[in-house]
């Protein structure tokens, strides 16, 4: 610590920074006490970052990834809707309105003939075209049907035990409302999409849980014990990854007896999706364990006398947990798509259960594309959710990587 490094302390001299050439430099000693820590002292922000835990560091880094944060918020919203779907949807998922079969989506208006009414729709005038035998629905400007909010509608039993009949919004008294159109039985598409969210969104989470548990246990054992067990699991993983997914899904899905109730089938499908997916995670766990085992800090812990469970639980697992969570997030979209594919083939979930895949199953012929394109709308939430999970996974991965 020299004086030159601390110019602020030096008194201002008259006549420029240096004395004339023939005079000696004036002797100067600072009276201020010397603080040896003044260079290494951190600003409060730096101190916060240096003392932050790993999870806090990840959170700080994650917050900077704006797209990932937006995705997280969006997904949270989607899961909230799925959780309270009975309340959010204007109808029950099975309510049939036979007067409006395959009605196109209605548009929400705010102004009627120049005056403000609030959100309302124009009622449909129905006409069966006898030449083409098509049902034609035309908005009738005379029928102004304002939406009602927090109103009474179809009764429901939320989560199987809360009775209620309040809905977030419903059609005007005695009318029908199809903001996203209706299907071949006159069921409201919007309500069905909202109800479908519950199944489609949870199937990914449950499936990833199954594969997570399998992957960590099997991969952990293989990585920690090595030897014969490792060799055998490596071969099994290779085999499972070698086989194309869809045929295996199909074979496993056809094992489920047709007498099973839809809810059992639903759990069966999640287990199948998880069974096919654990290999990637097990590989990741194994290779991470193998490489982390060689790290110096593990050796240090061993030298300090830490026992195996402590090394694994305190040093190894936190080392790759964040990495695994990021990896799992990216795997969820595959499960959601897998469900749609299985349902599309008629092997997945079946009719009384409403999922996005089941709904798309009804949209699988060319007539739908040509005549009733709104039946394909469930694909929109599928795409949005998958994109959101991908962005979220990207953000988590970047946040979990300490070298970025």
């Amino acid at each position, binding site marked *: 610590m020299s004086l030159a490094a601390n110019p602020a302390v030096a008194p201002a001299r008259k006549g420029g920074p240096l004395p004339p050439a023939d005079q000696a430099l004036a002797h100067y000693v600072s009276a201020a006490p010397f603080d040896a820590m003044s260079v290494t002292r951190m600003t409060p922000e730096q101190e916060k970052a240096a003392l932050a835990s790993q999870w806090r560091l990840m959170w700080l880094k994650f917050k900077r990834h704006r797209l990932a944060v937006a995705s997280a918020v969006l997904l949270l919203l989607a899961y909230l809707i799925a959780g309270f779907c009975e309340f959010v949807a204007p109808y029950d998922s099975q309510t049939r309105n036979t007067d409006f079969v395959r009605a196109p989506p209605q548009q929400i208006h705010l102004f009627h003939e120049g005056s403000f009414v609030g959100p309302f729709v124009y009622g449909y005038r129905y006409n069966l075209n006898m030449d083409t035998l098509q049902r034609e629905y035309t908005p009738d400007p005379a029928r102004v049907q304002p939406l009602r909010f927090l109103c009474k509608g179809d009764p429901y039993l939320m989560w199987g035990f809360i009775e209620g009949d309040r809905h977030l919004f419903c059609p005007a008294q005695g009318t029908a409302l199809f903001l996203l159109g209706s299907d071949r039985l006159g069921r409201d598409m919007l309500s069905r999409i909202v109800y479908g969210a519950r199944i489609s969104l949870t199937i990914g989470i449950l499936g990833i849980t199954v594969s997570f548990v399998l992957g960590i246990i099997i991969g952990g054992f293989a990585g920690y014990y090595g030897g014969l067990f490792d060799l055998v699991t490596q071969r099994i993983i290779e085999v499972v990854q070698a086989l194309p997914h869809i045929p295996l899904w199909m*074979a496993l899905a056809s094992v489920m007896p047709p007498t099973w109730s839809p809810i059992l089938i639903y759990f069966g499908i999640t287990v199948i999706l998880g069974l096919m997916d654990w290999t990637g995670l097990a590989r990741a766990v194994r290779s991470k364990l193998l490489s982390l085992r060689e790290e110096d800090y593990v050796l240090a812990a061993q030298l300090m006398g830490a026992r195996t469970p402590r090394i694994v639980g305190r040093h190894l697992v936190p080392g790759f947990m964040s990495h695994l969570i990021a990896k799992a997030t990216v795997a969820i979209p595959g499960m959601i798509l897998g469900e749609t*594919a299985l349902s599309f083939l008629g092997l997945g979930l079946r009719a009384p259960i409403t999922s996005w895949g089941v709904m798309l199953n009804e949209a699988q012929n060319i007539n739908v594309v040509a005549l009733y394109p709104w039946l394909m709308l469930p694909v929109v939430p599928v*795409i949005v959710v998958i994109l959101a999970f991908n962005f979220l996974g990207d953000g988590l991965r970047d946040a979990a990587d300490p070298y970025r």
Partner: protein
Amino acid sequence: MLRYLFRRVLLMIPTLLLASALIFTVMQLPPGDFFQTYVAEMQAQGERADLSRLEFLKKEYHLDKPPVERYAYWLADFVRGDFGYSFEYDLPVRDLIGDRLLLTMILSFLTILFTWAVAFPIGIYSATHQYSWGDYGLTFLGLLGLAVPHFLLALIVMYFANVWLGLSIGGLMAPEYLNQPMSMAKFGSVLQHIWLPVVVIGITGTGGMIRAVRANLLDELDKQYVTTARAKGLPPRRALLKYPFRMSLNFFISDIGSVLPSVVSGAEIVAIVLSLPTTGPLLVRALQSQDMYLAGSFLMFLAVLTVIGVLISDIALAMLDPRVRLQGGESK
């Protein structure tokens, strides 16, 4: 190198045995067999099935034996090149698959070419222009390709191809060329139709490939040898393509193992939607009707191809990267 090769080939045997056992178990899992389904279907239509013929077939194919014995017969036949007999089509499996294999391979080959041709330039652009609008836009497009369920994409593209371009819907050729011998006109018709499945199937793979190329190239571009090369005045193109790009291809070579089986099976669901005469729909149908020899042999065939694919990629990797070879082939 020879020792390494020998080890790898030897390791293939237990892998394949395991795969065959797994496939056989999966085939046996569904309750009942093809004959039960067949008899039930016949009865539902009010007809009587020819029971004596069924008995004969059952005996011929050892279906009256316990599973372990059946597994042994099946495996032994498979090794000898006898893939069994499809009950549903009344044809040996080999003849059945052979017909469709050529078209499937042409289709898959074109799809892979399409994927590479689209993904590599985009991936390189995204990596060299990281966090630019072009990067965001292209990555987003790639992700979109991943997110759209491709059976729906196939339907939509098929519809608009029909409305705008007047192409016949579905199939790999115009209907009048079905069952015709190959001719210039038929070939032309195939060319007219094949781009649609190629694009639809390719889009899914492209999204993943773009991300992989981008991520791997970015990792390489951060390294010091790239800075050195630039500092020494290597032209930008050369400093990109000659070293970092080549290194980033390692992931790509290790991926060959999974490419090979998909070349043969094709994208099953898209093929069903577009009613393509490829092997995918055949496999799916066989699984649904429990035509076990067809489905089992086909799956086994795919497993063999995958294992060979992994072997090829391992050898290629070992030739490219001596570090792999020195470790004795176990990637740790």
